């Protein structure tokens, strides 16, 4: 029996937001436009995921950020490069332990946490959507291979 | 020195093998030597042997901090070959390979040099062209290289995965028939016995702790067993070259990294040649005891730990299984690691240093074992004549500041970018 569902959601409009120089002023303007602060490292809020110290992934509409950005940084479209794959069901955490070195079973990896980590040799960005689901942003060229790996692995998860 | 022979063994059958003498002495260090060699590994011992044998220079000490042959000469995958693309490298390694061919007799110690063929697989037409290029570069110099078709490889090495779904399909190969493997420990021991019998002092458990300088000239070494004066000091401490050179105030174009190897439990003959590939980072051969010996990439971070990282090893196994799927049910028996001098163009460093009287032999990267006799011979020649032998001239230490790297892979100065 498989306790995890692997579902390819397809591509979506994505932008990489990168702030340069002293990022505080731009961040403040963007926070105002978004209605919340830009998420901290390792977190997501709304449609914005923090990827690295200087970059955020914006899913969907980015016009508000663009308007607020000014010369504090840049938005770059990247959506063509990722497949989004949702892992859902009680065993999604268990599945993420396969071929990985990241602790997806940690209680600290909770809703709206974001992490990028290699799984089966592919760097994948994970966002915890709920206790029942996690969204993976997979480099599009690797998506077919990685899902094949996940489907096979899902059939051999250990009993918890 | 008791001569080794089948007859002598047979004699031993009737005297309980009681007639064998120690393979080398355990002398106290003398206060002074003409040449002090730092490092009792393959290269240091070979250098001492050829100094004594070819040049009659026998007032030589080999100083070893642990036991002889305890470093990389005993921690490698024992591959011997001269299939390099760049002329200075193939020329040097070919010189060495020729010495390998007569080494057991030269040493009266069977180093089990087994020329069963160094096979480099090609996984695409592009690979095959690169292999042809390498083969042509060798053949132009008179070094043996032969291109094999897929069918020929299938006959030679049926254990490989010839299926079309293979992730690394086999399109053909280049083989150097004269390449192969040797028994690594025997190389160190054979050179040690040969050097010792000609008067060289092999001093184990003696660590060099400093250089004795007179201006810009080195005149001896400080050791854990006291000062030893020397006319010439030769560093043969690959893996730790930087550490030793620092005692003379030198910084080298070398970083020490861990390189792992592993061996499976023994099985009956399965892998006939030394299998390498043009696209992957793994090399496989079978030892006389039946174990499948594997090597892969270095750990790509500086380390003196002689302890490799598990993930690096797993990657090498993954690649090995991609080539030979039937290895899956064998078990890894042991893995080990050596500390290698990763030089900044991937080629060795042999020659003089900015310090008078101090010579260096290091920077061997992956290539130290097969170089052992050639390196020893040519380094000894250089020491004896006071100038680098022509074959090792391209490997001078100053080539980096001059702008003449010998960069086999064209990957530039950073070993971990290779």
């Amino acid at each position, binding site marked *: 029996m498989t306790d995890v569902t692997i579902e390819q959601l397809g591509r979506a409009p994505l932008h990489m937001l990168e*702030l*340069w*120089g*002293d*990022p*505080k002023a731009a*961040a403040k303007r963007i926070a105002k436009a978004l209605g919340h602060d*830009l998420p*901290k*490292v*390792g977190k997501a809020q709304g449609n914005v995921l923090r*990827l*690295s*110290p*200087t*970059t955020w992934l914006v899913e969907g509409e980015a016009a508000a950020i663009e308007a607020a950005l000014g010369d504090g940084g840049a938005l770059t479209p990247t959506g063509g490069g990722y497949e989004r794959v949702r892992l859902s069901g009680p065993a999604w955490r268990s599945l993420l332990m396969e071929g990985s*070195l*990241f602790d997806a079973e940690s209680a600290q990896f909770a809703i709206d946490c974001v*992490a*990028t*980590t*290699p799984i089966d040799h592919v*760097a994948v960005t994970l966002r915890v959507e709920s206790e029942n689901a996690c969204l993976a942003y997979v480099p599009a060229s690797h998506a077919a291979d990685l899902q094949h790996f996940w489907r096979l692995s899902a059939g051999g998860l250990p009993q918890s | 020195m008791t001569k080794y022979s089948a007859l002598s063994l047979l004699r031993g059958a009737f005297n309980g093998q009681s007639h064998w003498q120690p393979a080398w002495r355990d002398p106290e260090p003398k206060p002074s030597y003409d040449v002090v060699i730092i490092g009792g590994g393959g290269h240091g011992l070979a250098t001492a042997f050829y100094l004594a044998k070819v040049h009659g220079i026998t007032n030589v000490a080999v100083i070893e901090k642990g036991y002889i042959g305890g470093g990389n000469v005993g921690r490698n995958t024992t591959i011997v070959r001269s299939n390099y693309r760049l002329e200075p490298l193939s020329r040097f390694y070919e010189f060495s390979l020729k010495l390998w061919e007569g080494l057991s007799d030269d040493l009266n110690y069977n180093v089990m040099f087994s020329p069963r063929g160094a096979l480099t697989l090609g996984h695409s037409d592009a690979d095959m062209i690169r292999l042809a290029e390498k083969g042509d570069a060798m053949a132009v110099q008179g070094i043996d290289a032969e291109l094999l078709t897929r069918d020929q490889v299938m006959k030679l090495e049926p254990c490989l995965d010839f299926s079309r779904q293979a992730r690394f399909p086999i399109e053909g190969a280049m083989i150097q028939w004269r390449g192969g493997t040797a028994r690594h420990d025997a190389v160190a021991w054979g050179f040690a016995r040969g050097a010792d019998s000609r008067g060289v002092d092999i001093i184990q458990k003696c660590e060099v702790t400093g250089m004795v300088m007179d201006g810009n000239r080195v005149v001896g070494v400080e050791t854990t067993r006291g000062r030893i004066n020397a006319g010439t000091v030769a560093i043969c401490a690959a893996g*730790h*070259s*930087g*550490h030793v050179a*620092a005692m003379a105030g030198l*910084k*080298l*174009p*070398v*970083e*020490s990294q861990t390189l792992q190897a592993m061996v499976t439990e023994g099985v009956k003959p399965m892998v006939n040649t030394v299998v390498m590939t043009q696209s992957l980072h793994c090399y496989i051969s079978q030892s006389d005891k039946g174990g499948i010996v594997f090597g892969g990439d270095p750990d*790509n*971070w*500086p*380390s*003196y*730990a002689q302890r490799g*990282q*598990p*993930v690096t090893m797993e990657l090498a196994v993954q690649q090995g299984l991609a080539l030979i799927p039937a290895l899956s049910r064998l078990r890894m028996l042991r893995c080990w690691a050596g500390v290698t001098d990763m030089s*900044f163009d991937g080629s060795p460093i042999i020659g003089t240093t900015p310090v008078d009287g101090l010579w260096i032999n290091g920077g061997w990267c992956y290539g130290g074992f097969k170089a052992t006799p050639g390196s020893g011979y040519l380094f000894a020649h250089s020491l004896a004549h006071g100038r680098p032998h022509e074959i090792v001239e391209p490997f001078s230490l100053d080539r*980096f*500041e001059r702008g003449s790297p010998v960069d086999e892979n064209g990957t530039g*100065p*950073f070993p*971990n970018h290779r």
Partner: protein
Amino acid sequence: MKLIPCPHCGNRAQAEFVYERTADSVVPLDAAPEVAVAALFTRANLRGVEEEIWRHTYGCGSWMLIRRDRVSHAIEWVKPIGPKVLP
């Protein structure tokens, strides 16, 4: 395989990181030829503690300076490298 404390992501497996070079081998922009050559081609390569540049390549992608013992592998400290960042 070490745990490396990424200044941003916290402890992660060493396999997520890539060693780049020692801190003293960064060639400054517009360096004089001898400075550049020395930085590129000579290393202390100590059997001891050195400062090294690493990158969390397969994680957040950020760069860091790690002071580390090359014999025991023990990490003394890790510092972020790069432009100013928000928390």
